[in-house]
């Protein structure tokens, strides 16, 4: 019997568990490398060349280049690691979170000012496949 994943049914959410950590290992370590200024510079100069230094899957590399954060979550990325990518781009956590919801940053910020997303509306997400 494998370990249960009682969180699997929660919509719009990828839990960074052992399975995700395994497939995302090199992706996340690549992200971590962006904490150093010279790595950031090399990455910015040529995304593809820098990514090719890492043992990541082609899918992961494409998703980084596309800044497709939902895809990156599905491919084993963890949001605190992925944060190094959008921080390198000079973008905020709120910007990145907004892109994952499909809203503009303004719509998303307005939702937050109005008290945020209610878990009572989780069913609205069921029809939005992600990852």
């Amino acid at each position, binding site marked *: 019997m494998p370990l249960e994943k009682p969180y699997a049914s929660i919509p719009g959410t990828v839990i960074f568990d052992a399975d995700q950590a395994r497939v995302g*290992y090199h992706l996340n370590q690549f992200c971590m490398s962006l904490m150093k200024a010279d790595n950031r510079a090399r990455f910015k100069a040529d995304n593809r060349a820098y990514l090719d230094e890492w043992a990541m899957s082609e899918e992961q590399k494409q998703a980084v280049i596309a800044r497709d954060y939902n895809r990156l979550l599905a491919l084993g990325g963890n949001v605190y690691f992925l944060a190094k990518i959008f921080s390198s781009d000079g973008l905020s956590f709120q910007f990145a*979170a907004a892109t994952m919801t499909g809203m503009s940053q303004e719509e998303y910020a307005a939702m937050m000012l109005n008290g945020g997303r209610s878990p009572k509306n989780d069913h609205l997400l069921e029809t939005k496949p992600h990852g």
Partner: protein
Amino acid sequence: MAKITAGVTTSHVPAIGAALDNGRAGEPYWQKVFSGYEFAKRWIAEEKPDVVFLVYNDHASAFSLDLIPTFAIGTGERFNPADEGWGPRPVPGVEGAPELAFHIAQSLILDDFDLTIVNKMDVDHGLTVPLSLMFGQPDAWPCKVIPFAVNVVQYPPPSGARCYALGKALRRAIESFDGDLKVQVWGTGGMSHQLQGPRAGLINAEFDNRFLDLIVNDPEAAAAIPHVEYIREAGSEGIELVMWLIMRGALGDKVDQLHRFYHVPASNTAVGHLILKGAA
């Protein structure tokens, strides 16, 4: 003998640190957040703790996937603010309390908590934002700090019950230290937030306020909340709330609530803040 004089809980949202560091604390959006900490600042100026045992989580700053400790206690002399990708926060370095920290480490390990002892690490916003909220912008932090990092990034974090039990053992450890010290225990992180996926922006004020009630009056019930309930009700990153249970376990059965504050939003997050004292 060292004494636990109070417990504090607070969110540690990085955007709060950025607002302070960039001189935007006076803006109405942020003023609503900082106003909730006015009481705390006056109070702690009078309390003058010698040491803060600061429970927080590292956000892929000191610990990458190479090495992920469930519980890491900082026993070093000094900890510097981490460069989280935009340079270190312009805040003072953190002075450790090695003698007390080693004492606690030894005591907790003998009590069957499998700690990782860390003498050298940088500390990220999870630790420095609570210091900023409580102490403002001094040239040096007015007390020593023992960083205690809990893994909440890779699933599974320790359970709430485990954190609560650790808090109780922490109380025994601190009270057996031979030194006349006033020690506060802070539990940081939370409240409800989800930073990822189509469900990002989740806020559950009802859950948060019930959790605040439970932390004060029924910590056993709070400790019984399973991981999946935090994730479902408070969002994938709301699971940080397990860290508050370490603070609560350290305070003893009954507490008096000196202050309570709840506000939405700070960036993606709800802000919750408590000041508690063990009941006389």
